[in-house]
């Protein structure tokens, strides 16, 4: 018994050591950009882990924020202007559609649903050239409305799948009672179904916000004026191709990634639920 206990203990200690060692691999690069962002460039050129000289400064942040060609002060605001509507419009549109799939029977319903579900695997590259052409011809190129519409459409397949599955397991008795009381379909949807759906909506909000905020490809094709560029576009612009200023680019990286990290931390439970539900993202 004692021997066995000892063995169990040794195993526990071993797993703890391995787990913490492995996790260091994931933590150190983040620690690296944090250190690099608060130290002058000469101090980090031979490694941010050297501390013989240590003069912390916020100079990198102010230079990333006020960058001459790609200032984050502007890019961050631009990203918010695009991301907020691109988060809430698709959720509303998808909820309506998903409710229709979950609660009604109509001809071609299953075929239609299957088609929409399959659309979620379409890569961005497969739609971007025609979208670029359409956007140019109707004046939505280099225009946030175009980008927001594209993000909305692209989000619909996985959101409809996610919400239909959620609606399918909601008890229908309440809705039936409301209908007997004379409520219209839209009233039932807004007053009864949506409030019950809040946890699912939290998952969608977290995932979609982060997804749109992080997107680079759609933005790179559809937005070209320097003053309209988004946060993810500012990163390559500030980095350049040769000899990046690691103080500035580290600060810029932190500013840009802190938003999705904050969303993740605040809505962690819902975020993970959404991921695990198997949301296939384009």
């Amino acid at each position: 018994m004692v021997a066995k206990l000892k063995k169990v203990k040794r195993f526990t200690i071993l797993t703890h050591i391995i787990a913490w060692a492995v996790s260091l691999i994931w933590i150190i690069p983040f620690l690296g950009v944090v250190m690099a962002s608060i130290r002058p460039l000469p101090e980090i050129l031979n490694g941010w882990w050297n501390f013989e000289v240590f003069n912390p400064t916020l100079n990198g942040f102010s230079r990333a924020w006020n960058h001459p060609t790609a200032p984050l002060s502007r890019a961050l605001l631009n990203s918010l202007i695009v991301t907020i509507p691109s988060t809430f419009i698709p959720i509303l549109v998808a909820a309506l559609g998903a409710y229709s799939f979950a609660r009604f029977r109509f001809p071609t319903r299953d075929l239609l649903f299957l088609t929409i579900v399959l659309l979620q695997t379409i890569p961005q590259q497969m739609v971007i050239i025609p979208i670029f052409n359409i956007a140019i011809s109707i004046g939505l190129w280099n225009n946030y409305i175009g980008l927001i519409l594209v993000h909305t459409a692209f989000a619909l397949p996985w959101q409809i799948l996610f919400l239909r599955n959620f609606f399918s397991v909601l008890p229908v008795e309440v809705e039936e009672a409301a209908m007997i009381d004379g409520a219209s379909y839209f009233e039932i949807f807004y007053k009864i179904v949506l409030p019950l759906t809040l946890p699912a909506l939290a998952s969608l909000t977290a995932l979609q916000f982060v997804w749109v905020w992080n997107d680079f490809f759609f933005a790179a094709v559809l937005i070209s004026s320097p003053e309209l560029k988004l946060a993810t576009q500012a990163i390559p612009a500030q980095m350049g191709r040769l000899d990046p200023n690691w103080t500035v680019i580290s600060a810029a990286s932190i500013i840009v990634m802190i938003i999705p990290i904050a969303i993740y931390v605040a809505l962690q439970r819902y975020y993970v639920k959404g991921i695990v539900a198997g949301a296939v993202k384009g």
Partner: protein
Amino acid sequence: MSRRQIKIPLLFLTPALLLLTIFVLFPVVNTIYISLLNQEGEFVGLDNYAEVFGRKEFWNPQNLIEGKPPPYGALIHNGIWILVHLPLSVFFGLLLAVLLRDVKGGAIIKSAVFLGVVIPMIVGGVLLRFIYEADAGIVNAFLRVVGLGHLARTWTAFPQTILLSLILGSVWIWTGFSMIVYSAGLEGIPMELFEVAKIDGASRWRTFWRITVPMLRPATIVVVTMTLLWELKIFDIVWVIQRGGPGGASMVMAVMMYLRAFLYIPSNFGTASAIATLLTIMTFGFAAYLVNRMVKS
């Protein structure tokens, strides 16, 4: 309750169907169509596909056969990405999920590992380039500590090393995904199974292979398929680090498509669409399998 109706459900669906038709369905069909046209807009059959496969940028097995360093062409690079990245991310994801379940502070470590999936891939690319820097990067510092200092270099600057460096870096970015899916899978396994195994005197090793792994099959299907799609579509980190260079050594399909459509002058929508279509066909094969599984379950 399923109400037989046609007007109301269609009304509810109209906005979604409209958006999907304009911004997804029509563009997909249109991209296929464009891939069959030349620069003048004339129908040329599969010429663009032939041109894509004829380009060393896309398909260059010669270097690989002769044992030379990349470029091997975008298609082969994506293939190598899958061969190296897929087993590693599955392995590390499963390992971390199993280990961290019983470790003190496991939830915090999980969150840290998962950050790779949460941050923009563009920023992920910056982080990778930084750790691979010659003097400022931590990878070389580590090599010097273990006595391999003579290998130190800027790993993303050379055709010999960039592809593998990016692939390993992308394992760092993506492992959080497989870990989180496996963690959820583990929670779904009834504890009684483990208790019964323990009473029967099964070793940890045996329990792991006979109970944990088979019970995680659905999670594995999701992880493998999603990871394959991610590898096929890889773009941001390659773009921000070397834009497919140096000398095409880190070229992948999505980057090649973007360059031909939107950066090269004159742009070539025909071949870019052909690449996009090929990419989609490959994606679709894997994805149809996953969706089929999900709808069934």
